[in-house]
């Protein structure tokens, strides 16, 4: 297994996908990650301290900083980034284009496993995790919770086959933005095969409604490199439209356009201060999870710094 070797002990996706249970897959990834880091599950991002403020009448005395009071005889309230634990909603694309895969498993499998891994990880931290699956409309909606059995429910939701129709990222994202969910972290796992304009509009909409956003773009290596040889009728998995393509002549153009699209998404993400992670399906999941954690930590510091400057 070349992939395993290269990733220094991380489980390669092809092996991982052979595990039938989504819960077990997630456990394997998360446990593998924990082997390297030692951090208390009790101190999640959600418990990050943000600022002090003057006590006013009516504030809960529980959050009064007694030490400050003892030291300076002033009443201060200790404010955290989120007063409860982190509220994370996983947005998983179940459209038909996600059903493509040239590696023996599909992009949807990969996306589901990625989402399951994140869920497992966050749940273990004590954060509330929710799930939204969508194709051209919102398909399943599991509200963010952190209670016994909820993880299983999420795993079960992720195990559902992607039987959706066309990807219309616009409509479901719009719907999610309008759902008045409590502000929190949104993790979008999708191939993002949608026009740039729509994407830009919807993502900024989501961002504007106060959510923190992380994007995982899932794609197959064949989609990136167009490694076909023989001319064939290429059939769109969503519209069932057929197009005669001779890869020898079409490859260069395809790759350029694919690259342009990814770059455009990345640009939008940076403009919106959204974390963007390309996730080719041949990449070990642990890497993706690791990137996610790094980003969250960095993001936490940014907020802290912002709070300190004030």
């Amino acid at each position, binding site marked *: 297994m*070349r992939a395993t070797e290269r990733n220094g002990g991380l489980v390669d996706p*092809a092996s991982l996908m052979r595990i039938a249970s989504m819960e077990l897959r997630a456990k394997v990834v998360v446990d593998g990650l924990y082997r390297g880091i030692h951090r208390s599950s009790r101190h999640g991002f959600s418990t990050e301290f943000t600022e002090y403020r003057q006590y006013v009448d009516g504030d809960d005395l529980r959050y009064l900083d007694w030490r400050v009071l003892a030291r300076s005889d002033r009443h201060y309230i200790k404010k955290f980034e989120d007063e409860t634990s982190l509220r994370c909603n996983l947005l998983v694309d179940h459209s038909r*284009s*996600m*059903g*493509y895969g*040239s*590696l*023996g498993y599909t*992009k949807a499998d990969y996306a589901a496993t990625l989402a399951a891994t994140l869920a497992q990880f966050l749940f273990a931290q004590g954060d509330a995790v929710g799930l939204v699956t969508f194709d051209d409309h919102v398909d399943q909606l599991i509200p963010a919770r952190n209670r016994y059995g909820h993880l299983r429910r999420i795993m079960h939701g992720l195990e559902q086959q992607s039987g959706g129709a066309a*990807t219309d990222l616009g409509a479901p994202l719009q719907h999610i933005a309008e759902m008045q969910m409590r502000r929190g972290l949104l993790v979008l796992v999708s*191939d993002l*095969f949608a026009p740039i304009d729509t994407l830009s509009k919807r993502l900024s909409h989501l961002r504007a409604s106060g959510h923190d956003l992380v994007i995982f773009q899932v794609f*197959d*290596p*064949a*989609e*990136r*490199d167009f*490694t*076909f*040889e*023989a*001319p*064939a*009728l*290429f*059939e*769109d*998995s*969503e*519209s069932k*439209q*057929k*197009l*005669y*393509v*001779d*890869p020898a*002549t*079409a490859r260069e*153009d*395809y790759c350029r*356009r*694919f690259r342009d*699209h990814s770059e455009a998404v990345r640009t939008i993400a940076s403009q919106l201060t959204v974390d963007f992670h390309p996730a*080719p399906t*041949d990449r070990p999941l642990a890497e993706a999870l690791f990137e996610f954690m790094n980003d969250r930590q960095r993001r936490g510091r940014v907020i802290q710094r912002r709070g300190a400057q004030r």
Partner: protein
Amino acid sequence: MSVLFPLFFAAAAAVIAPILLHLLRQRARNIQPFSSLMFLRATPPRMQPKTRVENLPLLLLRCLALILLAIAFARPLWQGTDLMTVGQKGRTLILLDTSASMSRTGLWDQALAHLDQAIADPEQRVAIVAFDRTLRPLLNFEDWAGQPPAARAELARTRAQSITPGSAGSDIGLALAGAADLISDDETAAAEAQGIKRIVLISDLQAGRGLDALRSATWPKGLGLSIRQVSSAQPTNAGLSLVTVETGLMPEADDQRPRVRVSNDAASKSQAFTVAWSDGVGTPENVSVPPGSTRVVRAPLRPAGKAGSAVVLRGDDHAFDNTLYLTDAAPAEVPVLYLGSDAVDDPTGLAYFLKRALQPTRVLAPRLTAHGLADAAADPARFSWVVVGGAPSAELAQRLTAHVSSGGAITVVLRQASDAAWLEKLSGHALRAEEARVNGFAMIGRVDFAHPLLRPFEVARFGDFTKIHVWHHRTLTPPPTAQVLAWYDDGQPAWLDVPVGKGRVLVLTSGWHPADSQLALSTKFVPLIYTELQRSSRITPRPTQVIIGDAATLPTGTQSIVGPLASADAANPTSTTSQVIAQQGLYRVQTAEGALLVAANVDPLESHTAPLALETLEALGVAIADADAAAAVAAAEAARTSERKLKVAELEARQKSWMWILAAAFIVLLIETIVAGFASRRKTETPSDVVATDVVATGAAS
């Protein structure tokens, strides 16, 4: 070789499809599922260079199979020579109208043009018949068939150009019935089997005598009538005809101005006409006749003693019926001799009533001369009819006998039984006469209406003689040669006809004077006297008007006809003697009873030039192919084609060559399948499989 459905040959064009497919670079037949075509653009399939046709044997096999299939569906057949002649022969009988109305301007040229069209096909059998009131064959089927095909049309044209429309009326019904018979007579067994038959009627369809002749005939099945109507651009036509006068009536002062009937055709546009004498004498009469109606007017007044020979009508477009020839019908003078003891002004005598009965009529002008029974001046030979009322003197009796023997006619009235004595001598037979004993009155009980004298009373309305009371009559034993015309109710003969020599004697056993009977007072008297006058004088009303083409209007016993004469008095005819009258004018007709001047005119029915309604023809069962010439040809062609198709289909069904060709096509397809199987087995790996495995490998590697 020919084919049943040549259109299927077009299917052979389908061979282009395999050729193109072989020229095309083989396209991937497999479908490559892909997530999204968002970043893909279609690339056109590349053609192989023309020189590199893939799988040439396969291509040839496929083309061959397609061509064989096309041929099989086209149903080919190998035909004999007999098929070539199918439907080409047909019989066409051309009826060419030569009636007077066809002499209108331009019509004859149109008719000849139609004829040219009808005889265009030299393969058909053609006959041409001209008609007016009668049929005149111009060209029969044998004449046509006897010529080489190239010369046939020319012959027909020459024959048709040799005639022109005459002055006779038309009888389309008779012509059609006759033509149907003619064309049916031509049906020999061989000809019956094939070809269509039709009558082409080239006519202005002027109604003429109408279609009465067709009513009694049955229109043959399968015989079509094509009508080629010729028509004139000038619709106004009016005609002249003579109003026949009652010849038995007394002449009138206006008789010099004959009454003519002006009839205007329904399609006419004008209604003002002028009637005048042809020689210009007198003031022309203006007459207004609305279209579709007729009006009777008198010809203009002429100076006394100058009779005209023709009246002309002016003001319409067509001249063929505008002249009406007339003969001067002066009454014939008939001298009548009465021999008797009574005076002409004695109302108790016979002469008194005879004089009053013999009034002049338009035809006869009797002149009565009365003499005594012993008058030596009386010469019976100078008189047409002699009436004897009593016993003449011996000398006179002798003259009378000579007169009768030489062919004269006398009427003897037995006023007394003794009068029969001279009659015995006259007839040469013993006659016993007595005064009959009459109880009250006698009546005429039985009459022989077959006798010429009594034929006018034949009709039941006029045949009742019982109202005539006879007070006195004589009984007479009739001589064996005598013919009794009437009997009294007691069985005694009343009137007898006794032939004597070349002549004859009419014997009345009772007089018409009041002392003997009421005969003179009855309505029977004048007709009886006039009939006897005509018989005796041998003058019968003769037709003076002859309708051209109608033999029935010619005087009976016509021997020869001389004319047309320049005028009524012309001694030398401008035309030679003939048997028929073909054109308008005055003619001198020689009959057994002498020469007669007649005027020949166009049939008055010919003036109504409005065409016949085709519906009436159809109502009589005539199968009208069409009214339009082009459509007729097309219909005939269609019939011929369908017949040919049937024959061809029959022959094809016998040969069934399509089955063999279809079998061959299947064999070729079988070979094609085998060859294609070999070819595909040689390619152990299809290009699409290679691509699929490549993709998996590349994906894993990246």
